[in-house]
């Protein structure tokens, strides 16, 4: 079950307006914990994170509120933190094996912790850096490895965003699968041009 959803604390109305003003339509959900956007899939069968993130960047730019784009499949998961100040990505791979050498493992952990502090700062919640740094799927002996989808749910829980967006995507089907999802169409190009000319 794949995930391709944007989660933000911006108001649902503002997000719907932003989606409408963009080039990609989708479903907007006003969840009690935030706003979820399921964007329509890009035209191509294969899409990079950069391509998938384009409509999300537009929403963040218009709402001026940090957001997280959740992307996952069976192999990898990514939480792309988008903010007016830039973007940083947290990524996990299902069969990740950390370095077996303690010194290298601990050095990598420190780098990860420091990177997560940067991500939390970008999200404008620097105090959440240490909690974000604990979202890992290291194979700990005697413990079940954390599923990729659960890693994304933890990120949402830490950042105070709706975790029910995980496992939701329009890449696999047309149904949003979320309660009260409202369809928002992107503005057609001819109307966008009209609006631009009207402004000038």
């Amino acid at each position, binding site marked *: 079950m794949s995930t391709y959803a944007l989660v933000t604390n911006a108001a649902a109305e503002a997000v719907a307006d932003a989606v409408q003003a963009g080039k990609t339509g989708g479903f907007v959900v006003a969840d009690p914990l935030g706003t979820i956007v399921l964007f329509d899939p890009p035209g191509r069968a294969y899409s990079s994170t950069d391509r998938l993130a384009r409509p999300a960047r537009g929403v963040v730019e218009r709402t001026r509120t940090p957001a997280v784009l959740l992307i996952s499949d069976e192999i990898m998961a990514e939480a792309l933190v988008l903010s007016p100040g830039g973007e940083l990505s947290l990524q996990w791979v299902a069969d990740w094996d950390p370095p077996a*050498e*303690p*010194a290298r493992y601990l*050095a990598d952990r420190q780098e990860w912790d420091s990177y997560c502090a940067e991500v939390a*700062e970008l999200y404008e919640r620097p105090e959440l850096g*240490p909690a974000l740094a604990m979202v890992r799927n290291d194979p700990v002996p005697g413990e079940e490895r954390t599923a990729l989808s659960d890693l994304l*749910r933890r990120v949402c829980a830490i950042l105070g965003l709706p975790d*029910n967006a995980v*496992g939701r995507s329009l890449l696999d089907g047309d149904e949003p699968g979320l*309660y009260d999802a409202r369809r928002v169409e992107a503005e057609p190009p001819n109307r966008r041009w009209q609006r631009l000319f009207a402004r000038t």
Partner: protein
Amino acid sequence: MDLRPGLSVDLRAGLGVELFAVRATAHRIATLAGPEAATGVIAEHDGWSRLRRDPREIGAVTRSAAYALIHQSGVRITGYHPDGSVAEGPGAATMAGGAALLRQVLAHDEPRYTPAARLADVCRALGVPPELLVDRPPRRLPIPAPRTAVVLVGLDLAAAAADAVLTRQSSWTVPLTPQWSMQVWDGAGRAAPGTSAAYVLAGRNPAVALWWSAREAGLVVVHGSKLVAGHQWGDWAPITPESTAAAGRVLAADFAVPDQALSLTALLRRRDLAPAQAVASLVALLRLPDAGLGRLSASALASWSATVPGAVRTPQLSGLAAIRHAVREAREA
């Protein structure tokens, strides 16, 4: 409502007779329905929770689909939709093809089709993960503990302070012994990762990144640009008997306490020590003065550093400015 009159499924053999499931995590339930409601979660899997009681109320509050599967004389299925509507029997399935599959599951009658298998198939038809049938309490999100980190540098104060600016963090350099100094982040700006700072400060001399919190304590030893040893007490790390022996030898050689190599290895292998205690014992074995290592928080250590006679404060500089500063300081030193 019995879906098929006469069909009797005895689920008491190993499974229990009720399954209450809601498509919401324990975190979502706790946030929207209150922490008390979340205590009723007895299993969690892939965004679903299994509850102790009927999930209608929690489903409505969390705006999530919920199901009650109850066995009396047959399997009774009730689906609660977030809008408050209720569906029973095969009509409770919302997934494409779910209702047809449910009918098949409930109608199939064969001795080999066990109650456990039937209930698991009911779950699949509804999109409920069958893993919920196994009691698996939700994992609690680990709570991070504030961490304090320092870098021990095998240089005298003047030489260590000259290089301190290269770590690109605002810091205090404090003398520990004639051969060893300590670099402490002073709280201004962002702290550099301990191992990165150790890389910068280790040249011909060794450097040790040392950190501790209420959860864990650890160290990494750097020689030149190479990580030579690492260890952690507390949280999981790939520590082995070989790695502790190697780390013990390296620490004993670097701190010129060869007689303590075995004691250091023994200390590194202990699992019963609190992080603070482990660091305090390490400092004692390395014959370093008690500088609050293992005990003090980052801010307390920075405050203490400011009171140490001879301690040098270096600002956070970047790029060429840092290199110029380091070269100038090294010449003066």
